[in-house]
């Protein structure tokens, strides 16, 4: 079974989702390669090797938006090398490349996968639909390559025993106008504390926090617990905190040991991003808020009363 994993390099390292996918790929197949988009540092290549990629196809897009070029290069490679399965992650660049590749090759892609199972004669993709309420198993019809987009945190990332991979520079066919989008500026939004994706504890706030000033209470509690700060879509749309802190379908999927939701009602698109957390604690004044459906402890009350007492009590411990 030949499996390829799409990997984007961000800040000199592969995304954590790429490593999760490589770990899963090792359990499914015996011929694993990564398709890397980025500068291709020695550390990144070494990490991809350690997680199981024996070959890395490398594309350095420079200042071009990589999606069209990466899809064209992948399509040409796939034609020659015939991978059975190509895995992408549910994150921006992966989605762009997966969609363009499917359009280019005229083959389907199954999105939102939470598991992949090999059977005697096919590949079963298990997806969550309807906000995670229903699981659906789908198989591909016909021969590969089959494309799948995997939800973050579906698989634990564990390094294997692999050494440095064989690196092959990918050639990009002419993409014309499709490939003409350029990145003219890059901005990193600085946040303190642990990264959302890696945090053991997350304190997240929603519209119920009231205002940007009052959202500081979320940040203070996160500081006391060495937690990462998260936010609902309403909060990032209002500009109280950067988009990179958004938890949910359009933001990040997280799976911390403890998730504290303050003033978050729990719209479907938020729940799919956090419902698999270990212990969920929610504070909301609306007894009917959907967040209480997944919370291990739901406090029905005013977050502006509960939170200051909680902060005070933690400070005196």
């Amino acid at each position, binding site marked *: 079974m030949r499996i390829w994993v799409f990997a984007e390099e961000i800040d000199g390292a592969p995304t954590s989702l790429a490593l999760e996918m490589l770990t899963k790929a090792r359990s499914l197949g015996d011929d694993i390669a990564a398709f890397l988009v980025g500068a291709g540092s020695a550390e990144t290549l070494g990490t991809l090797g350690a997680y199981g990629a024996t070959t890395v196809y490398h594309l350095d897009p420079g200042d071009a938006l990589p999606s069209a070029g990466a899809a064209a290069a992948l399509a040409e490679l796939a034609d020659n090398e015939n991978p059975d399965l190509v895995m992408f992650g549910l994150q921006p660049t992966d989605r762009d490349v997966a969609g363009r590749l499917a359009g280019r090759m005229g083959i389907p892609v199954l999105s939102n996968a939470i598991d992949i199972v090999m059977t005697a004669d096919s590949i079963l993709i298990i997806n969550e639909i309807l906000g995670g309420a229903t*699981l659906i198993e789908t198989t591909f019809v016909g021969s590969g390559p089959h494309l799948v987009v995997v939800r973050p945190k579906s698989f634990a990332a564990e390094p294997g025993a692999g050494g440095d991979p064989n690196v092959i520079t990918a050639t990009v066919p002419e993409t014309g106008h499709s490939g003409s989008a350029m990145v003219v500026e890059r901005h990193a939004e600085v946040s303190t504390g642990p990264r959302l994706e890696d945090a053991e504890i997350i304190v997240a706030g929603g519209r119920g926090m009231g205002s940007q000033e009052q959202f500081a209470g979320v940040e203070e509690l996160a500081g006391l617990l060495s937690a990462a700060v998260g936010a609902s879509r309403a909060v990032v749309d209002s500009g109280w905190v950067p988009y990179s802190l958004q938890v949910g379908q359009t933001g990040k999927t997280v799976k911390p040991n403890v998730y504290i939701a303050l003033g978050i009602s729990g719209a479907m698109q938020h729940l799919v991003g956090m419902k698999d957390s270990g212990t969920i*604690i929610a504070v909301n004044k609306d007894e009917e808020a959907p967040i209480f459906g997944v919370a291990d402890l739901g406090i029905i009350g005013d977050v502006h009363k509960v939170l200051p007492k909680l902060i005070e009590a933690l400070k005196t411990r």
Partner: protein
Amino acid sequence: MKIAVCVKQIPDPATPYELDPESHFVVRPEDQVLDDTDRYGVEMGLQLAEATEGEVVLVSMGPAGSLQGIRQALAMGADKAVVISDEALRGSGALVTARVLAAAIEREGVDLVIAGTESTDGYAGVVPQMMSELLGMPALTFARRVEHDDGTIRIERQTSTGYDVVEATLPALVTVTSGAVEPRYPTFKGIMAAKQKPVDQPSCADLGVEGIGAAGSGQTIASVRPAPERAAGAKVQDEGEAHLEIIKLLDQAKAI
């Protein structure tokens, strides 16, 4: 400039969704609503069209029903709609959807295509990118800000660590996030005008698209089952001491 905005009618998210027991497809009532995430694309299209004396064409695939959701977008100010509601499309996957929408857009001949990042009911999240490839356009995705200046489109593209400024010349496709613009509410005049606006309903044959429906989608559903439900825990009314319950649980979870 002529702008196509992709929109989708979905069952009202406030009501529980049902799957047809045999086909496993979502049951779609006669009256569907405009997907809330599409209102941002419609607003963006209207703003860009207003600035360039252009026009906005809505493009949608799926059972037309009463067209209630399409009328909602027309009421915001879009000029007309193309709705592909062909019975033969039942069970189509993302790629067939992209092929149909791309064919309708190509027939219209537009400078800019705008779509949301994913639909609320299906959320595959790859249809716009597929369309961009089929249309031979650059895809400027996950935009939280969009500017147009004399044939050049420039967006702030949300990334996992911040944002990038991305630029391309038209024609191009843009996907917008919900923070990009503040959608307008339809006026009474807009609602009345929407009833008279043209809604073209071509068949797939009219668009020259073949290999559609479940059979053309290259995938088959093997089984459907409810996800294991997470048992809801204790609910406590705050009487002034609820924070102690939180501390107890944080202790148990070894978080403090």
